[in-house]
């Protein structure tokens, strides 16, 4: 057995002897990608490394290395390997890098006694339950220009030596990059909505900074949308009044769309108004087009001066300072290096952390398949780019079977996309794999109400019932104890899809014509089989309720089971939680802890530093007082709560925002005038 965390030393061969450039710690079972591209978890940033070079597969019972068809190959010692167990006796070599397993008492027992060719398969079956992960965003970065210093002297550990760091020392150091009253970490939608509130409440843009990967606040969200087949003209699962570009929620996206249509004499646009009027009962719920939402955010970003508040960089660590503030350490992109130095520290009085989902979920069997057959592009997570699937089945008029796994909104959209692909190839068959059937009357119950079920899928307009964003249910979750909350969340949450007429019609049509088939069961085996039509994947399922086992032979499998919310996949948050012993929420389903625990004002209580305050928003606060944190409206709510909280504390230039100021600022929004 392996004891986690696993420590790896990464050495680099320069002109002289090997130099250690980084020590990394991998916290748990998972699939860690190695490559040059920044989406890898371990980034080796030199041209000799392929963009997606290799996998490092960590299991309870051993470690394996799998090459991903890289140009310069992957070696264990001097032996080139495709995929192989790794006991750490010899280092893994990739280009001029060597990865060494740090010897510790437990590591000595990691010898994996499985036949070479079956290695990864054995791992897959031996570690059920633990989700494999392809973490993203907060990746461990090994940069080429890392300073050649002893480990403990490396950034930001060389500055962050204790729980509370000296502000004067930081200011005197070469890393100091400035001070800001309000400082947001992430620079995604959560940061944007927070900054928008601050600006409208009276704070000038020079007092706000947001550090993150991309100047476009919705860049990451848009990528997930695009990959999960929501192009600009497709609609999001979001309400009309959930408006990240407008803190009032009025006018909503429905009236804006209607207005736009009416200006062009398209009177059909009036139907959106009717949708909002009668939504859920008389009409299908209105949802905005993704492209319109992004455009509206662009325009608001322009209005509040987002570009001037944005700081490009990847945040590596956060510490309290000795003058009641916070030090945020980050690394800027190479083109912004200052005399070769990319490391920076900025100091903030009120910080806000909103870094989003740490990882994409990948079910164990599909991940193992990927590692065993890296050259077979046959299984994908719906949130990664999988255009190749549609291209291949649309261009090739041969029969093709696609397995869609999961019953959430992404699965619904992917099925719609495959239905569209059928216009080009009538031989496409969809096999929809779900864990278990759900009968009409088996929907979740909460108190007196029950959720509606259609085609074995629970239906709900949004990912939580509406009253979770400001109604009776929000009241209940805010007042509940952590234990009660878990029970409420179990009843209200779960996987659901939206009740869309077009989606229902597709399912009905598909069942009638025989090209859509739901199958139920837990995965048993996943194999690559050779058939007359070339290689295919063969999946065996163990069904429930004494049914015979199901076998599916398919060309592609798309995993629509979602994203990983566990914050231990983020090195930044893990470090923060460990250093300050931050409270975590209780994870739904028991066992693992959930997000970072916050107060109803979204303050991270454990990070309070005198008069300094730290807030969090978005997915990383899941399981806290508000259920729908990872939504547009949820971010508006958390931003309003934390900014209101600061206003009461007397934070500089944050007004109490009464009715008159609210109205006059709204007029400014309408006329696109700077706040």
């Amino acid at each position, binding site marked *: 057995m392996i004891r986690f965390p696993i420590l790896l030393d990464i050495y680099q061969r320069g002109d002289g002897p090997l130099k250690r450039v980084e020590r990394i710690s991998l916290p748990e079972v998972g699939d860690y990608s190695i490559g040059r591209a920044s989406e890898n978890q371990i980034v080796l940033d030199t041209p000799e490394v392929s963009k997606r070079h290799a996998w490092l597969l960590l299991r309870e019972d051993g470690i394996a290395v799998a090459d991903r068809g890289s140009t310069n190959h992957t070696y264990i010692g001097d032996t080139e390997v495709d995929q192989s167990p790794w006991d750490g006796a010899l280092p893994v070599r990739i280009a001029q890098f060597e990865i060494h397993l740090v010897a510790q008492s437990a590591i000595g027992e990691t010898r994996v006694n499985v036949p070479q060719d079956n290695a990864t398969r054995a791992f897959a079956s031996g570690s059920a339950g633990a989700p494999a992960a392809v973490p993203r965003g907060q990746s461990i970065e090994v940069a080429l220009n890392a300073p050649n210093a002893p480990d403990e002297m490396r950034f930001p550990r060389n500055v962050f030596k204790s729980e509370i760091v000296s502000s004067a020392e930081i200011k005197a150091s070469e890393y100091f990059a400035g001070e800001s009253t309000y400082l947001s970490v992430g620079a995604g939608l959560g940061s944007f909505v927070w900054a928008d509130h601050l600006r409208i409440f009276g704070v000038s843009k020079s007092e706000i900074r947001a550090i993150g990967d991309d100047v476009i606040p919705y860049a990451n969200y848009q990528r997930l949308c695009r990959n999960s087949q929501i192009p600009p003209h497709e609609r999001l699962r979001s309400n009309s009044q959930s408006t990240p570009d407008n803190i009032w*929620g009025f006018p909503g996206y429905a009236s804006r769309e209607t207005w736009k249509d009416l200006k062009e004499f398209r009177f059909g646009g009036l139907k959106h108004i009717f949708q909002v009027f009668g939504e859920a009962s008389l009409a299908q719920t209105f949802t905005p087009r993704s492209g319109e939402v992004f455009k509206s955010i662009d325009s608001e970003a322009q209005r509040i001066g987002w570009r001037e508040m944005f700081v490009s960089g990847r945040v590596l660590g956060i510490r309290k300072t000795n003058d009641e503030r916070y030090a945020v350490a980050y690394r800027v992109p190479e083109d912004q290096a200052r005399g070769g130095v990319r490391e920076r520290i900025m100091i903030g009085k009120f910080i806000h952390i909103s870094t989003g989902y740490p990882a994409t979920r990948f079910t164990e069997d599909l991940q193992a398949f990927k590692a065993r057959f890296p050259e077979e592009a046959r299984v994908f997570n719906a949130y990664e780019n999988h255009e190749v699937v549609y291209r291949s089945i649309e261009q090739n008029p041969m029969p093709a079977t696609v397995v869609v796994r999961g019953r959430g909104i992404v699965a619904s959209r992917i099925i719609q996309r495959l239905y569209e692909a059928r216009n080009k190839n009538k031989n496409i068959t969809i096999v929809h794999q779900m864990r278990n059937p759900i009968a009409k009357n088996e929907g979740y119950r909460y108190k007196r109400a029950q959720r509606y079920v259609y085609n074995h899928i629970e239906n709900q307009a949004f990912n939580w019932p509406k009253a979770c*964003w400001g109604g009776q249910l929000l009241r209940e979750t805010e007042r509940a104890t952590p234990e009660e909350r878990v029970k409420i969340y179990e009843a209200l949450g779960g996987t659901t899809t939206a009740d869309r007429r077009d989606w229902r019609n597709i399912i009905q049509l598909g069942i009638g014509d025989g090209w859509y088939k739901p199958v139920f069961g837990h995965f048993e085996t996943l194999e690559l089989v050779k058939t007359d039509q070339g290689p295919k994947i063969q999946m065996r399922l163990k069904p429930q309720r004494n049914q015979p086992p199901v076998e599916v032979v398919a060309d592609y499998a798309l995993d629509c089971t979602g994203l990983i919310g566990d914050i231990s996949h983020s090195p930044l948050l893990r470090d923060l939680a460990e250093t300050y012993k931050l409270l975590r929420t209780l994870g739904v389903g028991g066992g693992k802890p959930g997000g970072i625990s916050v107060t109803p004002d979204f303050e991270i209580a454990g990070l309070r530093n005198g008069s300094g305050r730290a807030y969090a928003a978005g997915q990383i606060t899941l399981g806290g007082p508000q259920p729908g944190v990872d939504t547009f409206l949820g971010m508006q709510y958390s931003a*309003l709560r934390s900014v*209101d909280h600061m206003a009461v504390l007397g934070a500089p230039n944050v007004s109490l925002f009464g009715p008159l100021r609210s109205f006059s600022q709204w007029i400014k929004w309408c006329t696109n005038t700077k706040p």
Partner: protein
Amino acid sequence: MVPTLKGRWLTRILLFLWIGVPITFLFSLYVAGPRSPILPYIGWHYDILPFQILSLILLVGLVMDPVYFYAQQYRWERDWPFAYFFFFSIVEFVIVLALVWWGVLDFTRPRSQLHTSENYLLFTFHFGCVFLLSFIAVLGLIQIFMIRWRFKSGEWGRM
């Protein structure tokens, strides 16, 4: 809308004060003839009748709110669509008309002065104006002034 019972009551009182009272005041000036008392200090004529109707509308609404809230418990989303708000506002007004017809306001003035078709037409027009503006307010006007209202289940005040 996702109101709680307290939120329903407070929103109703808010609409009564902000929209109901000013509009009703205009109506009371219109209804007033030379026979009516004089508003002290300003010297305007007014009639109390529109205020009596408005108060009845408020009272019926406050009594109906627990019924709506109970019905909401059977909705999975615990919401109250705008269409319901629209429909039940009219139901409430019909109840008010029935009460007047039945004689709840008979103590205020002689039946012959109260139960005229002209008056009933006026009540309907009066209600129509108040209702239309209230509905627009609920659709978005309130949150322009009170940004926290939509997150507070229809209650007033800070978070």
